[in-house]
């Protein structure tokens, strides 16, 4: 099958990934629960124990979806291998981090290495498009920026995975916008891969939404973040992705700057939010507490966890729309 069958291809990738992730999530959850790999849902009075590391189901779904994609579109094997290779390496780092927490500096360094398949297979174009300018020649610098990009996206998504459904919900919105832009840009091969990520996120959101029955863990968040970064590079939509990720960058950048540097979240003793007796959350009033997106949302008064996540998703929808608008500006100025 060739590029002219892209709509069927995109549909197949979406469906297969969705079904595989949806089927794998409860199986992975049961396996984790039986092994005692669980985490406490800290934003609930009941302190429920929820199976951790279920992001493994996302990895399984994406891997199956990508294999099927390669079978239906053999010409895109190189891009697909670079994409899934990056996702799997980031996922492996996530697994290590979930089982034996990594240091605050080690994690970003290791996630930067996830870009190796992109570099080795040469599936990047060192001429990124910048608004108002057009294409910029960065043949020497661009390969150096790739590991940074993967480390930033994976760790930003990781830092957003703090409440029920916040990670898959916001990433699904961003991926939907990216899919639209990739189709608009006629980057059909990358669009098919984006449809796989969208499907995996929708399937995982079903289980991870409030009240969560599964937690993705760092396995899920690091791999999903790396997937976003890989899509941005493969599809040549770097600038647009930065705009769509504004809430996530906001969350991680404020968090890091307020605690003065790279710190593992387990090292930060003061929480950005507090759980009230009535089950609502409120912004911490401690001066040294990290400034996160959740704290900014809650600064206007207490809210339930579900409403905080809804606010995060609305803000992500706004930034994704700005991303689409940015692409429109880029196309118009060209």
């Amino acid at each position, binding site marked *: 099958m060739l590029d002219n069958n892209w709509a069927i291809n995109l549909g197949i990738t979406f469906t297969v990934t969705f079904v595989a992730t949806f089927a794998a999530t409860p199986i992975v959850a049961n396996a984790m629960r039986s092994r005692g790999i669980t985490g406490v849902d800290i934003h609930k009075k009941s302190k429920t124990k929820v199976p951790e590391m279920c992001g493994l189901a996302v990895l399984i779904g994406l891997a199956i979806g990508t294999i099927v994609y390669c079978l239906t579109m053999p010409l895109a094997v190189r891009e697909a291998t670079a994409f899934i290779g990056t996702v799997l390496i980031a996922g492996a780092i996530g697994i290590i981090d979930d089982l034996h927490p990594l240091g605050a500096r080690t994690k970003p360094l290791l996630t930067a290495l996830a870009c190796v398949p992109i570099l080795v297979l040469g599936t990047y174009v060192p001429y990124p498009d910048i608004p108002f300018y057009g294409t*910029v020649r960065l043949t020497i610098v661009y390969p150096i920026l790739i590991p940074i990009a993967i480390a930033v996206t994976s760790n930003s998504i990781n830092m957003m995975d703090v409440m029920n459904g916040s990670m898959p919900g916001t990433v699904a919105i961003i991926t939907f916008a990216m899919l639209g832009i990739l189709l608009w840009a006629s980057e059909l091969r990358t669009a098919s891969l984006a449809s796989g990520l969208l499907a995996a996120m929708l399937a995982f959101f079903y289980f991870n939404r409030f009240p969560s029955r599964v937690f993705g863990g760092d396995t899920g968040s690091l791999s999903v973040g790396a997937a976003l970064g890989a899509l941005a590079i493969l599809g040549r939509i770097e*600038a647009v992705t930065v705009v769509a990720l504004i809430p996530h960058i906001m969350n991680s950048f404020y968090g890091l700057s307020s605690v003065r540097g790279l710190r593992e979240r387990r090292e930060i003793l003061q929480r950005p939010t507090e759980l009230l007796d009535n089950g609502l959350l409120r912004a911490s009033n401690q001066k040294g507490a990290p400034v996160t997106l959740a704290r900014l949302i809650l*600064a*206007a008064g207490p809210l339930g966890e579900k409403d905080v996540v809804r606010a995060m998703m609305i803000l992500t929808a706004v930034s994704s729309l700005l991303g689409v608008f940015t692409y429109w500006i880029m196309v118009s100025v060209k």
Partner: protein
Amino acid sequence: MKRILPLAAIEVFVWFVLLLITFVISKEAIEISFGTATLVERIATQTVRLLVSATLILVWLLAWKKVADLYLSRMLFHHGTNA
């Protein structure tokens, strides 16, 4: 949800400043050139372009942080949750 509006406004502000900075980068930083004849010249050109752009991006991040800090302190003060 009324509380989202100011945060969405911060997003739009951040986006607008980002576009403004890319405009400045496209008009000034990208024009910096030390020649392209040798590898050293090419590396010097791209490094200086990158440094200038990185500085402008740092300004963008600082402006972003200032606005968010202002929002947070005001909201915590108005809603009586300040320490």
